[in-house]
Every structure is written in C-alpha cells, then in structure tokens.
C-alpha cells in the first residue's frame, strides 16, 4: 500500500508546491524607478498604469512609444532611447501579466537574438524560461534556462536559481534541484518557499527521512508574513498526511495540529487530525476537530465529508442514538445542499453566473479573485470559491473578464469615432468658407513680403560693395538730392545762356561744392547709420518671418484638422467592427466553456451528495437499530421504573440489542464515513473560515476535549 500511496503524496506535494508558483514572481522585488532617473515621461506613464494593474493601458502606451521610436530616422535622439532595453522587457512583462504569453515570448526571443549586452541577454533568457515554466512546458523551460552564460543581473541573484530549481523538479532532475534549493534555503527573501520546495524535492528523490526533516523545519518557521505562514501550514499538512499514511497517527497529529485554524489549509488539517485520532481508536478526541470542522461552510468538501465522520465517531463510541441523530442532520444538510446545487445549476444554465461575475465593482482592486468570494450568496455564485480551486476554471474566467473589458473598450471606441467624425465635420464647416479669403490675402501679403525682402537684399548687397568702393552719392539725403538737381538745373541754364556771369557760375559751383563736401565728409557716418538701419530692418524681417511661418503652420494645422482623416477613421471603424464580432464570438465560446465547467463541477458535487445521502440513510437506519437494541437490552437489565440514561431525547430511538459489527459488511456506518472523502485542495485559500453554513445545526461539544488545541496563530 505504501508503494501505491507514494505517488499520491508526491502528487499532493506537487499540487501544493505548484500553489506556490506565484512566489517566484512575488520574490522578485518590483522594479522601482526613481523618478529622477526617468528620461521619458510617456514611459513613466506606462509604468504608472502597469503599477495599478492596468496592463492593457500600459502595453498600449508602450506599444505606441516603441512604434514611434522605431519609426524615427535618429532614434538615439529620442528620450525613450535611455529606457529602450527596459521598455522592451517591460512590454514583455506586461504582456505576461496580461496573459499574452505567445506575444511576450516572441518579444523576449527578439531581445535574445538581438545584439545586446550579456546581462540583458541573460535576463531575457530567464524571462523566457519563466514563461515556458508558467505555461507548463518544462522541457522548453529547461532548454532555455540552460542557455544562460556569463554574468547574471544582480536582481536575479535569487530568482534565477529558484526558477532553475523549479524547472529541474518539473523535469525530474531532483538532485540538481536539491543542490540549488539547499543553497537558497537560508535566503530571507525565499523564506518558506525554498525550504518547502527542498522538502518536496527530497521526497521526490526518494530521500524520505531528509524530506520529513526538511518539511518539519519549514513547519516550525516563525514569521508575520501570511504567505510564509501558509507555506508553514502546507508543510505541516503534507507531513501530517504522510505520517498518517505511514501508520504513525500519533506523530501525524503533532503536525496536523500545527496548522493554523484560520489558514487556507485548516479544513483539511482538521479532517486529517480527526482521522489520526480515529486511527488510534480515540474517537472522542476525533470529535474535537471534526465537530469544529462540521460548523464550517458546507460547500467545502472536507466539511461535507466530516458530516458523516462525526456520527461515525459516535457510533464507534457506542452512542448510537446520538449517531443516528447526527446522520439525520447530515441527511438534512445534504438534501438542502442538493436543492441548492440544483438551483445553482439551473441559474447557471440561464446565464446568471456570467452576468454576476463580470460586475464592475469586483474588479476595482487586484484582489478581484478574493472579491468574487464575497459575492452575495446567490445560487449562481454560491460555489464560486470552490470552483476557483481549478486553474483551468480560473484562467477561463480571467479570459472572460478580459474579453468583457475588450468589449467595453471597443464599444467606447466606436462611439469615439462617431464623435471624431462629427468634430471633423464641424471643423470643416468652420474653416471651409474662411480659408479661400484667407488664402487670397495670404497670397497678396506673401508677394508683398517677397518684394520687400528682395529690396532689403539689394540694399545689403549695395552696402557690401560700398565697403570696397565708396559711393557717397548713394548716401545723399532727399533734400540734398533735390538741391543738387536744382544746382544742375542752374548750371544747365547758365550754359544755355552762354556761360553767364563768372561770379554767378562761381556761386553755383560753390553751392554744388558745399553739398558734395557735406556728403563726402559725412560719408562714414552715413554708411554706419545705413548699416545700423539695415540691422534694424533685419529685426523686422525676422519678426515678419516668424509671423509668416506661424501663419503657414496655423493655416496648415487648420487644413490638417479636418482633412486626411477619412481613410484612417474608416480603417479603424472596420477594424473595430471586426474585433467586436470576434470578441462577441469568443465571449460566447468562453462563457459556454465556463458554464460547462461550472455545471460539470456542480453535477459532480450533486452526485457526491447523493452518494453521501444514501450512505447516511443506511447508516442512520443501522444506528437506530443499534440504539433500539441497546435500549431494549438495558430495559431487560433494569427494573421497569428506573429511568433510562440512554434515552436523552425524544428523538432518540429506543435502545435495542446491538449485534452489528462496526467494521463488517453489514455495518455501512463504518464504510460510509470516509467512503468518498474527496476534499480537493484549495491552494488559493478557498476557505470561508468559521463561517457556519446555512442549515448546519450547532454541534454539541463532544465529551472529552483533552487534546491540545490546534495552533490558533
């Protein structure tokens, strides 16, 4: 039997170990970016979204930035250049969180194949191996992680060997895993996890004694961290069941009682603790944990099972009347449970389940899975917490949520496009009549400006020439020019009059000389002033150019604000419509799959309840028989007027002779109790602790309670 049970232990250990997969992620400290290091604001915005769990928005922002970055002629000048490696990794990470493993894998492969530094390449290899590991492709994970060469980034100092050890375990390379985990056992960051996995690896490698010792060590860890405490509970639970299976019930109890009463494994521990006492024949003691467990939520399999365990213990204690009553109570509870299951199945078939779980308020924080457990106890959601124990169900439900989110987004975007269309029309209606007139005035001003600029250029050229060949006549004033014209006219008149009076000619010449002399003498000063005026003109021309370019940009912006959007909008509209159709089809498919899963699970539960019911019914009948016989025997032995101490209540049957054999074939009570003790593990902590289920009557405190109370830490 031992040989056949070892795989079961191993399976349980692996299942429980798998529940700790998340630790590898949790152990990786979230990368903190000092905002003083930030060189690209939009990259910071993507992180802002990602840190809130808005992975769609984070990916979308980074995708946009990366597309723009790679579209640039000189990406080195872009601010994202400083974060480009991080951005490439982060987009892969965000895709992983958004459960887009295919795309994340491709992105990371591209980094590995690219021309990157050794550390970056090794980080990419680590991440790719992690994807394969998470997607349950251990062989691919192993091949990938073995490609690691050279320097490993410091922040993967613990994560890399921990992941490697997990991959080794998945591939059956236990000695290698043990070697790595032994080194990691003392790491504070992996407290509980490395030790627990080491214990499991030792078990799987056949080193049972070492495995027990290791798990015992983990089972005694001290911590305030809820996750570490959960690992401690796991270790104690596995050890307890292992020893129970090995026939060491007394030792098993020690470990099972170490499991916290409010932890995720408490139900199974209470059930196991009861069985440990029962195996020792201490049925009174078995009633202590079982009675406590029986008051918990009936949807838990351990609780369902213990409803048969409690009367079984009473029957073993020869308290057949009490056993019969308890079997009766169990029957009532199973009946109510079957009714509730029927109601849940009917409700799910009507589609109420999917409507209930996509409610927006549930997803307001990252603990949405826990929030789902807090839904009102409607028929469609009553068993949700139990169904969540299945990884496939959880993943399918997450997919459904994601599809619902996409549906809402697409719906909003379709509305946006309509608004943009309207906006473009309004802009067109405003600018269309204005632009022709503006365009005409612009052309006039443009030609005028060109003329003035040409004039200015000519002046500059002339001044430049005058530097080497002075031309004072170019710098005469209007007044001087008029004066000189008049002098010239006088000279002409004198010449026409035969030369005239010498004194007159001399006066005219003196006048001309005076003007020329003034022009010549002031030439340098005038030249300087002209240069200064040209510089002033340049300032005006500059301002004019600014206005000109601003006008050109504004005109262009006005035109671009309503032209050229038709095709992109049309393209987006088609894409959105196609995506909406696909989302609708996928939601129907995914929703149907979830409903099938849920109904399958509930029907299975119903079947089990019916089996329990049949067994409880037989056991109850037998207990009544025995109680009646017992009573009759006592009546025979006692005088008629003596009160019967066995008749505790009116409900209790009359004592009869008890001739039934507890373990025999004719004693279904013995077989009944653990006949189908299928308490599925709930690694995610699917327990509503100490919440009495509807219809579960308060259990009387069992007689002896000398057992050390379970650890209530």
């Amino acid at each position, binding site marked *: 039997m031992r040989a*056949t*049970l070892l795989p079961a*232990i191993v*399976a*349980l250990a692996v*299942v429980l170990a798998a529940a700790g997969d998340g630790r590898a992620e949790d152990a990786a400290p979230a990368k*903190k970016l*000092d*905002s003083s*290091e*930030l060189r690209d*604001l*939009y990259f*910071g*915005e993507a*992180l*802002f979204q990602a*840190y809130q769990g808005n992975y*769609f928005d984070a990916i979308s922002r980074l*995708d946009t930035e990366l597309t723009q970055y790679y579209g640039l002629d000189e990406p080195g000048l872009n*601010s994202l250049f400083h974060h480009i490696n991080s951005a490439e990794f982060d987009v892969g990470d965000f895709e992983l969180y*958004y*459960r*887009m*493993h*295919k795309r994340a894998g491709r992105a990371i492969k591209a980094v590995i194949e690219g021309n990157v530094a050794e550390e970056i390449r090794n980080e990419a290899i680590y991440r790719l191996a992690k994807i394969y590991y998470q997607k349950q492709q251990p062989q691919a994970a192993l091949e990938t992680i073995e490609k690691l060469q050279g320097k490993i980034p410091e922040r993967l100092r613990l994560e890399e060997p921990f992941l490697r050890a997990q991959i080794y375990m998945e591939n059956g390379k236990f000695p290698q895993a043990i070697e790595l985990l032994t080194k990691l056992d003392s790491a504070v960051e992996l407290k509980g996890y490395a030790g627990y996995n080491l214990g499991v690896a030792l078990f799987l490698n056949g080193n049972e004694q070492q495995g027990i010792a290791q798990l015992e060590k983990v089972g005694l860890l001290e911590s305030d961290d809820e996750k570490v405490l959960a690992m401690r509970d796991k270790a104690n639970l596995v050890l307890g*069941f292992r020893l*129970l*299976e090995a*026939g060491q019930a007394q030792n098993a109890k020690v470990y099972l009682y170490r499991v916290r009463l409010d932890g995720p494994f408490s139900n*199974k521990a209470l059930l196991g603790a009861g*069985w440990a006492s029962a*195996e020792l024949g201490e049925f009174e003691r078995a009633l202590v944990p079982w009675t406590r467990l029986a008051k918990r939520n009936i949807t838990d399999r351990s609780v369902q099972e213990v409803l048969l365990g409690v009367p079984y213990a009473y029957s073993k204690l020869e308290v057949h009347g009490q056993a019969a009553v308890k079997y009766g109570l169990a029957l009532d509870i199973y009946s109510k449970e079957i009714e509730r299951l029927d109601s849940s199945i009917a409700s799910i078939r009507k589609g109420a389940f999917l409507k209930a779980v996509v409610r927006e308020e549930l997803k307001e*924080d990252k603990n949405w899975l826990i929030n789902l457990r807090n839904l009102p106890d409607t028929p469609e959601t009553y068993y949700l917490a139990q*169904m969540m124990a299945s990884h496939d169900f959880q993943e*399918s439900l997450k*997919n459904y949520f*994601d599809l619902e989110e996409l549906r809402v*987004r697409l719906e909003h975007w379709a509305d*946006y496009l309509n608004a943009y269309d309207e906006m*473009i029309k309004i802009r067109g209606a405003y600018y269309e009549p204005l632009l022709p007139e503006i365009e005409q005035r612009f052309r006039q001003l443009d030609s005028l400006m060109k003329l003035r600029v040409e004039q200015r250029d000519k002046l500059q050229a002339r001044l430049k020439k005058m530097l080497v060949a002075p031309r004072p006549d170019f710098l005469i004033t209007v007044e001087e020019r008029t004066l000189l014209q008049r002098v010239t006219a006088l000279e002409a008149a004198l010449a026409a009059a035969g030369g005239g009076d010498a004194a007159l000619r001399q006066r005219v010449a003196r006048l001309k000389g005076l003007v020329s002399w003034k022009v010549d003498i002031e030439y340098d000063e005038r030249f300087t002033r002209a240069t200064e005026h040209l510089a002033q003109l340049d300032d005006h021309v500059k301002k004019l150019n600014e206005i000109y370019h601003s006008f050109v940009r504004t005109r262009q*912006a006005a035109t*671009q604000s309503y032209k050229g959007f038709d095709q*992109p909008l049309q393209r*987006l509209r088609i894409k959105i419509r196609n*995506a909406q159709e696909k989302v609708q089809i*996928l939601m129907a498919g*995914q929703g149907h*799959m979830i409903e*099938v899963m849920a109904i*399958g*699970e509930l029907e299975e539960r119903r079947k089990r309840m019916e089996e329990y019911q049949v067994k409880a019914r037989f056991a109850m009948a037998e207990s009544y028989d025995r109680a009646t016989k017992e009573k009759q025997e006592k009546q025979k032995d006692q005088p008629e007027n003596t009160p019967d101490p066995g008749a505790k209540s009116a409900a209790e049957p009359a004592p009869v002779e008890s001739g039934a054999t507890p*373990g025999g074939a004719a004693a279904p009570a*013995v077989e009944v109790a*653990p006949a189908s*003790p*299928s*308490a*599925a*593990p709930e690694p995610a902590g699917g327990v509503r602790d100490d919440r009495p289920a509807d219809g579960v009557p308060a259990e009387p405190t069992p007689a002896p309670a000398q057992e050390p109370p379970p650890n209530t830490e």
Partner: protein
Amino acid sequence: MQMKKLIAMLFAACAVLPNAYAEQVSKEQIKGLDEQVQDIKKDVLEISAELNQLEEKLLYPSNTEIAFFVSLEKSSTLEPDAIELKVDDKDMATHIYSFKELEALRRGGVQRLFTGNVRTGEHKVLINIIGKSGAFKKTDNASYVVKKGVGPQFLEIRLTSSGVEFKDW
C-alpha cells in the same frame, strides 16, 4: 487496515484537483480558446495604438499640444489626496488620488494629469495640492510660467517633501 484504506482514499483524493468537467471540456479546447483570446488581445492593442496616434493628431496637434505630468519624489513624505491645475487662471484639471494611484506614483510611475492645447508663448501654470505629510494635513500651491514653443510642450510637476517643482521637457 480498513482505516488505512480509507485514509489512503482521502489522501489520494486530496492530491487530485477537481476535474469533473474534464469530459465536457478538453485541455485542447481550453488551450485553443486561450490562444484565440490572446490573438484578439493583440488585435485590440494594435487598434488602441493606432487610435492613440490618431487622437494625438486630431485632438492635440503638435503646435498647440501641452501635457502636464505628475511625479512623486521617491523620498517624499507627501501623500497627495487631490491636485488642481490652472493654466492662465482657467481650471484645466482636478484629480482625486486613489490608493492604487498613490502607490503607482510612489513606485516611480508618472501620471499624465492633463493634455490640452494652448497658443505659442508664455502661460501661467498654477498648481494646488491637498494632502498629508506624515500625520499632518498639508496644502501647497505653486506657480510657474511655461513657454510654449512651436513643438509639443511637456511639463513635469514633481511633488517633493519641500514643495512642488516644475521641469520643462
């Protein structure tokens, strides 16, 4: 012996995850649908990126675009509850922070508070912060003149223990 058999059954049952629906839904079906969901996510992300670019072009042309970002200094003890942004004495944006947003800011994320359009030239920016610093309520305000050029203008509003700092990008 009977007891051991029963415990073994219990133990084996504990080790197996519920798969009551295995007959109705195969692993291949689950995987196939999951891959289709991944494909549609990829398609929708592409639409989102395209829409982002279109919106930027349509709503915020580069010659008028101005965006305001909020960051929190790593060592800052300030916990903003709300922020108000005014540009040229006009209310532009107000925001009340959720716990998740505060945590994201603390971890180095940068919030895009507001994106809008302004003319080129100088604009007066006024920030009002209401929050806590340690156990005390803290209000702070700061002003800054941002010069909008012809290209897109980004302004980082950095919240520090000593007050509000501005950085042009």
